[in-house]
């Protein structure tokens, strides 16, 4: 099972400029989490602080009982072996070909024979769709391939924690979907704790178990996916819908005058850049059929049900709707009907401002999953 990451009161600044302060969150073991945030809110800095590449000013980041912020150097290197990190452009070693790049951690940290290394490396390269490209140098391949090769290298030591820095940037939507599926499949197979930093809404809606959001130098929220996906928080709402109207501006924040001006323009009929309202709980991505079930999902369900009464009503509703009838009996919840197509907990005028919303309540996980992804041909994947 993946390791748990406990972050408490983490604060980081460069000189006088605070990046974020008092970030407290808990990456539950074996679950997939996403950290959202507008560009420039220090998401990458957050990742780097988690693995001790940057030293936070205050706070703790505890993994397996080791505080990354304050531990000795040898402990730090030891703990880092638990991590697989995918950097933004792959960060491959430019002087080595793909094969040697992926083999690098094995050669440095294990005493495996070359034939064994070869088997593992080729398996990971095949997994990321790079079979046949092992002789290429990083400079000779496309950005998407570099990214996938970086992922292959991050996976080669069977990490307990996988950190992905914008896995979707520079990838087309199809490859992004494949990559998301790969991460979920991986989670099903090795039960690693995964943290994805991104600003891709599609990834954020379908992949994770938990979602967090950084804005204005702090963690706006972090919790089960249903909480953020149904949130009324203006920042979250604006971000999920990708529109200009709201507290996020071109530079990080905007002032009252700018906000009023944009509101007036929108009221006058100027389009605010958004598509349909995409809030609401959508079915989560499932592992490819044939793979084991994700054990993290089961643990998460237990955990979420325990804290259900503390969550906002909209999130509660979303969670209960996503349960099967047996589970509802098991947890003893869900007296009310779920076929209603209104979100009853929202203020009436909120519902009224978004007529024609393309979003609909998820009827049942199974049927919509079948539409979303036809089962790919089975291939011998061990």
């Amino acid at each position, binding site marked *: 099972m993946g390791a748990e990451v406990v972050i408490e009161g983490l604060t980081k600044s460069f000189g006088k400029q605070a990046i974020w302060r008092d970030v407290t969150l808990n990456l539950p073991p074996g679950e997939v989490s996403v950290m959202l945030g507008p560009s420039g809110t220090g998401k990458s800095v957050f990742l780097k602080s988690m693995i001790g590449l940057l030293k936070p000013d205050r706070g703790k980041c505890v993994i397996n009982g080791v505080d990354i912020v304050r531990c000795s*150097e040898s402990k730090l290197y030891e703990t880092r072996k638990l991590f697989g990190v995918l950097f933004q452009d792959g*960060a491959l070693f430019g002087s080595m070909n793909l094969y040697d790049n992926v083999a690098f951690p094995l050669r440095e940290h294990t005493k495996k024979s070359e034939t064994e290394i070869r088997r593992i490396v080729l398996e990971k390269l095949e997994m990321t769709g790079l079979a046949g490209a092992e002789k290429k140098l990083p400079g000779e391949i496309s950005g998407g391939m570099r990214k996938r090769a970086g992922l292959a290298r991050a996976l080669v030591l069977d990490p307990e924690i996988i950190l992905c820095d914008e896995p979707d940037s520079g990838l087309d939507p199809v490859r992004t979907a494949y990559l998301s599926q790969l991460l979920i499949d991986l989670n099903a197979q090795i039960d690693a704790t995964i943290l994805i930093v991104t600003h891709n809404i599609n990834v954020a809606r379908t992949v994770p178990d938990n979602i967090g959001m950084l804005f204005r130098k702090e963690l706006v929220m972090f919790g089960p996916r249903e909480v953020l996906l149904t949130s009324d928080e203006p920042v979250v709402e604006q971000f999920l819908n990708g529109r200009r109207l709201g507290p996020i501006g071109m530079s990080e924040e905007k002032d009252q005058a700018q906000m009023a001006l944009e509101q007036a323009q929108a009221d006058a009929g100027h389009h605010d850049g958004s598509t349909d309202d995409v809030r609401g709980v959508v079915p989560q991505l499932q592992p490819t059929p044939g793979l084991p079930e994700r054990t993290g999902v089961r643990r998460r369900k237990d955990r979420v049900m325990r804290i259900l009464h503390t969550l906002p009503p909209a999130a509660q509703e979303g969670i209960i709707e996503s349960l099967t009838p047996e589970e509802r009996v098991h947890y003893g919840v869900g007296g009310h009907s779920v076929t209603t197509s209104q979100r009853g907990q929202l203020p009436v005028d909120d519902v009224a401002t978004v007529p024609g919303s393309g979003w609909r309540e998820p009827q049942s996980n199974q049927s919509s999953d079948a539409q979303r992804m036809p089962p790919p041909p089975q291939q011998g994947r061990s």
Partner: protein
Amino acid sequence: MSSRASSAKIPGAGMLRETGKLFALGLDVARGIFQRPFQLREFIQQSWFIASVTILPTALVAIPFGAVISLQFGSLAKQLGAQSYTGAGSVLATVQQASPLVTALLVAGAGGSAICADIGARTIREEIDAMEVLGVSAIQRLVVPRVLACMLVAVLLNGMVSVIGVLGGYFFNVVLQDGTPGAYLASFSALAQLPDLWVGELKALIFGFIAAVVAAYRGLNPPPGPKGVGDAVNQSVVITFLLLFVVNFVITLIYLQVVPAKLD
């Protein structure tokens, strides 16, 4: 994303901080030399690389350098009527001073700049970060082999420069200044002694260390952007040159105090 704090209120504080970090890296490297596993392959590759970029320029610099010393000293000795000591003087100057400095300048200029550019490019491409995250110390994996390679090549080059410099001096003294080959050779050991050679080699060793550590330090902490790497290479060479002459001065001073001159 530079980790440098901009709190340089006290003048010179920034410089002190950089110096301290440079020194800390030097200590880390010194400790890393004794840590296992030793990166033998990287060490051999780097030694070969540094040797291949420095041998030819060093030899080409060494010949005129030896010649200049020999000519200068020859004409001076002639005026003082001490022609028979020409060989002794130029050997002393070449082995003790000229050769380690020539070596160090070229190791820093050719080898150090290449090291700095290499590591600097890896830093801005996040390769160093990636390596650290994979649980591999970049100092242990990249810097230590390069520092050792620089030291080894400096010591070996120093031997070569000494020989070439002395041969050059001999040639110009005998051919141009009508010195007698016998007198030149015979006076070799009149002033020079074995410790002169040792101190020359020791200097080369220390200069090689300094050149590589400064190059690695600037490479690991470049100003942001591709231009930053260029600036870092530039600075690393300049800083190394400054340090070399100061350290050379100190070592020479200590040596002259500790080891008695032969004629006394």
